């Protein structure tokens, strides 16, 4: 079966810097692919390039076989790519309700059903529904960002470092939320927190200096301490 999202030899610049020099990854329907790597490896840039926020300099990005390279980000979103950025992308001066409304590309019965479902999944958002998003805690903001990305019938959702800046107990809630949602969606997750990444990931892709240097099933990575030590800086204990 062809992958839902395929990235092949992706190359991209930020200003004069050649940040991505050959990123390849693919994720199949129902899978969660985790992108790992040290700071500056190009993980966030990879997601932003897939999303059309950074121009593609070379290589291929395909969603169910159709090329996304060169399309503006709103077209990519409409073709079925959801996005939760590293900074959450919450509109502070809009209410929780308005943030969700902006995320709904259609307002049909299915979309309303999905909205009700995410509100059931994140009861804090239901309580704060009419409040300004600026009043939410860090964890609630992350919940809102994830909920908003799942309002549409997206083919794949890109999530960038959902645990960043959150207390461990809140990270557990984020993990539970992603585990619940991965039942219904294909996900590409960038994550530095290896415990979270390994709990939700089916496949891994390790980036180093803007290139994919290794990939495989998550279960294999968990056993390969040498690889973890080499690319992720984790202690190579026996």
């Amino acid at each position, binding site marked *: 079966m062809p992958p839902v999202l395929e990235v092949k030899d992706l190359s991209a610049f930020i200003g004069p810097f050649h940040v991505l020099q050959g990123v390849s990854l693919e994720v199949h329907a129902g899978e969660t692919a985790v992108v790992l790597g040290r700071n500056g490896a190009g993980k966030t840039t990879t997601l932003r390039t897939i*999303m059309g*926020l950074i121009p593609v300099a070379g290589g291929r990005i395909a969603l169910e076989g159709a090329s996304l390279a060169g399309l*503006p*980000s*709103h077209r990519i*979103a*409409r073709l079925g790519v959801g*996005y939760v*950025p590293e*900074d959450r*992308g919450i*509109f*502070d*001066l*809009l209410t929780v309700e*308005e943030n969700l*409304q*902006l*995320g709904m*590309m259609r307002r049909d019965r299915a979309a309303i059903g999905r909205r009700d479902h995410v509100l059931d999944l994140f009861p804090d958002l239901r309580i704060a529904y009419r409040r300004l998003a600026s009043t939410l805690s860090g964890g609630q903001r992350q919940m809102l960002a994830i909920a*908003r990305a799942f309002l*549409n019938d997206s083919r794949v959702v890109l999530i960038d470092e959902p645990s960043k800046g959150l207390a461990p107990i809140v990270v557990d809630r984020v993990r539970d939320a992603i585990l619940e949602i991965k039942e219904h969606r294909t996900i590409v997750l960038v994550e530095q927190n290896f415990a979270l990444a390994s709990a939700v990931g089916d496949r891994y892709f390790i980036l180093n200096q803007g290139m994919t240097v290794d990939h495989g099933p998550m279960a294999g990575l968990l056993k390969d301490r040498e690889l973890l030590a080499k690319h992720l800086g984790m202690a190579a204990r026996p």
Partner: protein
Amino acid sequence: MSIFLTLFINGLAEAALLFLLAAGLTIILGMMGVLNFAHGTLFLWGGYVHVWLFALTGDFLLSLAGATAAGFLLGLCFERLFIRGFYGRPTAQILITLGLMIVFTELARLLWGPDAIVAVRPAALSGTLTFQGAIISRYRLFLILVGAAFAALLHLLMQKSRIGMVIRAGVQSAEMVQALGINIRSYFSFVFAAGAAMAALGGALYAPMVGGVWSGMGIANQILAFIVVVIGGLGSFGGSAAGSVLLGLGGAAIAWFFPPGVVVGHVLLMAAVLSFRPAGLFGLAVRR
């Protein structure tokens, strides 16, 4: 006591005009990142078109509507023809809008001549009335009503409509709005043109207040509008309204008690606000 009431009314009338000019400027800057130096030129064109149409038709409201429509069309042309290709390139935008300001100011001089043209008020809005011993201009009262009506309308539009919601979100992060599947560029033309229309209406209303229209009135008022935007905070309608009232009332008081200090007073007011609130009264943390 009566002089304070007169100054209050005069200050609010100036504030109404400043709000019409600054509201568009702040949203264009906040949402699109465009520092529009041609905004005052649209104010200028609004004044000229109004005076010209009023002389032709004798219909005050029709000429106000015509000036507003002219501003909308000019704004649409500016955005589509000159600015659209330069989003995200602030230096190029500044040069282009400065160029538009120079060209369209000179074009106005070419069309209507270098000398000031008298602008008259309609009979119904001429003259004064007396209240508690204070002499109040009917036309200034009219300006206050128009300014308040526009502020209320804009508030409703921004808070209750889908387009208002997208604009408010776009001011905070145009990139994220795009990533949610909304083509924010399609909103840019409308926002730019609507801002231009409000500036033109401001110019059309300003000309009868000061009794004439001349080619320098755009730049003079644009500087005040920039001060309002800085005082009010980038991208905030509420901030523009508050900044306009502050500058309008402050300016009217200084103009009465120490006329040579008006310009210095405006700048000092801005410095005072910024020293307490560097992002302005209602400033946002803007992500691009």
